[in-house]
């Protein structure tokens, strides 16, 4: 079982390249948008 993230605390930042080759960094959305992170269960 993985370690769950605590609520009401800063979400862990990350930076990865998306499917179109653009860098996506969580902190880039700060003060701009809410972020809905969806952890996919695999493509079906």
């Amino acid at each position, binding site marked *: 079982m993985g370690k769950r993230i605590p609520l009401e605390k800063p979400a862990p930042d990350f930076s990865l390249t998306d*499917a179109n080759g653009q860098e996506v960094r969580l902190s880039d*959305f700060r003060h701009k948008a*809410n972020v809905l*992170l969806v*952890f996919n269960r695999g493509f079906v």
Partner: protein
Amino acid sequence: MAQLRQDFSKFQAQETEIIVVGPEDAGAFKEYWQAHKLPFTGLPDPTHSILKLYGQEVNLFKLGRMPAVVIVDKQGIARFAHYGHAMSDIPENEEVLLTLQELNEEALQRRTA
């Protein structure tokens, strides 16, 4: 994923960026995104860096990753997390949208206070 696409404009109205993270590689993501014309961000995470960081559960008995959903508000704070215990254990969009609406109202109140 089809439900997310269907309600995409509702998420936009709540000033929310959707990022779908999965263990597949960039090629698989690109193919799937193009085939399904998905309007939101797909983030391949083949090294499982974010998946581990956020504690997505792997159920060895059910042979797969359990779905999980996390809402991060505009301050970068994690405000909602749903870790599924089964493949179909995903919160309804309506529930997620309602939570986002509450967060936006709260942020507005904070600004005008």
